[in-house]
């Protein structure tokens, strides 16, 4: 059974159709990125999934329970972070998480240790007994992630989980999500950051104007685009002769050098071809210390897709 199934989900706001018969099935233990421009319907979808909005039509099943008719049971095994939530300023993180633990039925004897566990996981131990009213947005976002993990949910619904965090916080949250994937959590997350989705997710659903444009694996989407962008970092500087030789290599469609020691290679090849390219670069005498997807292939594909839908 898929932990998340959306069937013909629609939402109208005073005549404006924010969601238009959206259909989506998220597989268990997968990490699905939910992409789309502003106003595409991402947050509306997530708000319906988390019982903040009522759907105009359609259904949404969380672990087999329709959230539009029985939100209490449907949300039982779901953890969610929607936007950057505020918490009661009079309470401390421990009190807040203890409150959520009680609402979710975590027995009081294990609640305390579980609360401390998630507080440590989001690195908020130092502030666990301070009132939340004094916290920054980033600290509140960590508490939000902690409350989503508290009951060890089967499904995590995250709405731009790194929004409002500083670069270090963003990296830490991404690490948490990566770790959760390894632990077998199913993650459904919206994000504006394409490289984040590419880095964290194995599947991507792109929506625009409330409609699903495409739903596929990141790997397939990159292959469909054919041309990959590869980022190559070198120990030495690139000279004109080397540059010309790289341009002439098999399946290389173009080369850019944003810095003297970095190349961005447009490459039309599969995994085996990439290995061959790396070997060719080394044969040319280049000292490659980093060779990776630049993360722009998905961006270009996404932009093309959005352009076509408008």
């Amino acid at each position, binding site marked *: 059974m898929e932990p998340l199934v959306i069937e013909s989900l629609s939402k109208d706001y005073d005549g404006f159709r924010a969601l238009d018969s959206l259909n989506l099935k998220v597989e268990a233990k997968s990490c699905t990125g939910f992409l789309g421009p502003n106003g595409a319907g991402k947050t509306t979808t997530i708000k319906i999934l988390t019982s903040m909005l009522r759907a105009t039509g359609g259904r949404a099943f969380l672990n087999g329970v329709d959230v539009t008719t029985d939100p209490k049971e449907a949300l039982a095994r779901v953890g969610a972070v929607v936007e950057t939530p505020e*918490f009661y300023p009079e*309470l401390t993180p421990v009190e807040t998480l203890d409150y959520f633990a009680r609402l979710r*039925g975590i*027995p009081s004897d294990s609640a305390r240790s579980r609360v401390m566990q998630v507080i440590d996981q989001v690195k908020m131990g130092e502030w666990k007994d301070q009132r939340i009213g004094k916290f920054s947005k980033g600290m509140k976002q960590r508490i939000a992630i902690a409350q989503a993990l508290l009951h060890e949910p089967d499904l995590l619904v995250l709405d731009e989980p790194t929004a409002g965090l500083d670069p270090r916080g963003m990296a830490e949250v991404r690490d948490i999500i990566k770790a959760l994937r390894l632990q077998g959590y199913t993650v459904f997350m919206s994000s504006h950051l394409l490289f984040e989705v590419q880095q964290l997710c194995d599947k991507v659903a792109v929506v625009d104007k409330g409609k699903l444009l495409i739903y596929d694996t990141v790997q397939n989407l990159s292959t469909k685009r054919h041309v990959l962008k590869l980022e190559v970092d070198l120990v030495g500087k690139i000279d004109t002769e080397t540059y010309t030789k790289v341009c002439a290599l098999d399946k290389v469609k173009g080369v850019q050098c944003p810095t003297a020691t970095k190349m961005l290679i447009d490459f039309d090849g599969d995994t085996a071809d990439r290995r061959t390219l790396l070997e060719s670069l080394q044969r040319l005498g280049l000292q490659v210390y980093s060779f990776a997807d630049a993360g722009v292939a998905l961006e270009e594909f996404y932009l093309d897709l959005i352009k076509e839908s408008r």
Partner: protein
Amino acid sequence: MAVTNAEAGKYVLPSDFDQIITVTRVEFLRNLRRKRLLIFAIIIALVSALVLAVPPFFGGYPSDPILGPYSFAQNFTSTINFLIILLAVFYGGDALVSEFSNKTGYAIFPNPIRRSSLFMGKLFSSLLACVLVLGAYYIIIAASMIAVYGTLVIELLYSFLFAVLYMSACLGVAFAVSALMKSTVSALVLTFVLFLFVLSMLSGILMFAKVRAEPLLTFQAGVISGFLNGPYPGFFPPTEQRFNPGGGNVTGFDFVLYNPTVTNGMIVCTVWLVVSLLLAYAVFRRREMLG
């Protein structure tokens, strides 16, 4: 096919009743930690100090052996309508709207809890906080009465019980306003204006027009001090008192003072309480987390 929490080996969801208790406890803790409790403590202390300290400078406390304790207690209740309105505003005015305007709903609504449980928990905690403050005020009145007169009258309990009913109705109205408003500040201001100006002005206008303001909630506040007019029921104020400053020689200047009755007061307060809470719940249950 859906799998229940227990089947999935996860935590078993608490019943709605258990969740209401959890919400009540946490909301009450929040109420205790807010500065508004301190404000009420200061108000009560100031009013009590004034009522106790001023009379000795103007001839002492009422000395009538039977009516003295009643008049003494009535002095305390002269400001009770204002206190109750403040309680309703502070503990009810922002109770529901704050989840939306302060964005705390983003944290609470994705939890497996019905809106009805949240609503009930918030209501009970607000009631508890209000009864706590009101109870403290009546304890001061009772203690002062014993200290000054060495006696305690049962009508003080009647007055307190009616004050709780009246306060509950006011809180219900505050909850309804809170459910309807978009921002916390507007909810607080509107509740305050509604009680202190709109309803009070209507009461006054109707009195000048010689019409009983029976359906108005604030009109019923008179029952609270009415109980302390003297031994109940004999001394309870009459339903209307006619005054004629011209001694009957000048027509058109007579004035009628209407007093509420206990039965009507209980009925009107209950109707306001039930209707306003139903409205508040209906709006809160359907309200969406927009923006």
